[in-house]
């Protein structure tokens, strides 16, 4: 099947953006990542007007939604290119743009280092040996699966790269540390930063939950992190705490 691929290109943050169009003739089962790889393998690469153009700059690594590198706007939605198949998109014109919430580097590459900087500001590391609560094994595992791709921040109405609000990526990753840290002074530091950088900025639109490309139980993890950092639920014994969380989670829609 023949597709028209429209890509917004830009040489650097300071230069102007412009559109280029390419034709892709291939299987509808191809992913957007397959398409980009095929385009870049053409020697030379020509756009639909016949001009020879430079290969498209984009990030990818694992190709199987384990690393989060290939997040971009595909037909206006932030998604992973490796896991977005052409037959799931409407029509035969595919539009590719870089994520808009992060500083542009080139073409489809953006600088997502703010995600990591925010985790550092939230003190998300352990000062003691991890306490491995068997009752929270599953949500801790889910918390660790976060790809740091940035899709949740892209759709969040409250996040901007200049603000204090660190977004859902912080709340999701915070849970396992909040649940494992035994050093109470440090736990209080994490909780204080969490309140300031997440709880006070979140408007609960939950678009993050809907957009997560790997289907993390985002809402459940937000609830659990809020309980631990804001409401001090760590003071309950493990079993009661987990049973309380289960009841709370059952009241929300969990994916």
């Amino acid at each position, binding site marked *: 099947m023949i597709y028209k691929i429209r890509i917004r290109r830009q040489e650097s943050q300071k230069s102007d953006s412009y559109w280029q169009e390419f034709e892709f003739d291939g299987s509808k089962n191809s992913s957007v990542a397959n398409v980009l790889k095929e385009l870049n393998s053409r020697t030379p690469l020509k756009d639909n007007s016949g001009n020879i153009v430079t290969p498209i700059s984009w990030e990818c690594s694992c190709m*199987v939604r384990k690393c989060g590198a290939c997040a971009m706007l595909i037909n206006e939605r932030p998604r992973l290119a490796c896991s977005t198949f052409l037959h799931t998109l409407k029509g035969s014109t595919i539009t590719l743009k870089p994520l808009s919430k992060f500083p542009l580097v080139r073409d489809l590459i953006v600088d997502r280092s703010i995600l990591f900087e925010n985790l550092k500001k939230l003190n998300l590391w352990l000062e003691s040996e991890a306490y491995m609560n068997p009752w929270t094994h599953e949500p801790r595992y889910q918390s660790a699966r976060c790809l740091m791709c940035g899709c949740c921040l892209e759709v969040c109405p409250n996040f901007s790269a200049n603000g204090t609000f660190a977004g859902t990526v912080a709340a999701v990753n915070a849970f396992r540390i909040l649940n494992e840290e035994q050093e109470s002074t440090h736990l209080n530091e994490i909780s204080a930063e969490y309140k300031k950088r997440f709880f006070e900025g979140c408007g609960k639109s939950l678009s993050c939950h809907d957009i997560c490309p790997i289907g993390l139980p985002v809402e459940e993890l937000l609830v659990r992190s809020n309980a631990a950092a804001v409401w001090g639920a760590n003071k309950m014994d493990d079993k009661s705490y987990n049973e309380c969380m289960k009841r709370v989670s059952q009241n929300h829609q969990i994916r």
Partner: protein
Amino acid sequence: MKDGKQWYFMEEKYPELGNLMPRDITAREIWKVSHESEVFLDMTEISEEIISNKLSGLADDCMTYLHKDIRKEPVSVLPGIHYFMGGILVDEQHRTPIQNLCAAGECCAQYHGANRLGGNSLLGALYGGRVAAKSACEQADVVDLSCATQIDFPPASQISEIKQLNKVMQETMGVVRNENTLLNGIQTVQALTGNLPLLGMAVLKSALARKESRGAHWREDYPKSNDDDYLKTTVARFDGKQIQISFVPVPERR
């Protein structure tokens, strides 16, 4: 498949361990059989409980990317690169020969020898990471960090050259190696420019110099291990012009 029927060749050849033989042996058997027929991994007998609890990610990925339900049908397989046993040479403190540069994880080589055993990459990640961090902190206190050595590397390769390099490496550094294909490979790679062909050359020359088989390095012209001459670590060094190959002894057992 053999004579129209499913042929479980690993179970047949290795009755005790079957498909749990070490990876280098399994890879070679798959590679040999793949010349006659397509090779599959049959996971249909695995219980639903195990699939849901331990293999749900795998089942999901096979469905999403291969459109195959592993519960119902075997999946086509071929040996592929999974782990690089070589890498930046480091000492026990994970320091490299370059001052103020430490390396940890798969990018460096220290403890796995010619065959990294299953699950052991955790050693490099956890132990290696911690030790490298410790070394880096110790060095940072003592030496000025701005005194790194600079070597001028060639500019990035063209896409067409990378494609050629892919083809050569695939053909010469696969599961089974021999002197002729290695020599031809070296000739082809010599003509390519850029950083990646330089790395490729280091790998090819190391493979050529090791005239024995050991772990993942299997040569059909030297199918046995030769501890007397080769129980050593191959080191490839770029002097600015050429790749030089040498051998260093392995550490004493403690």
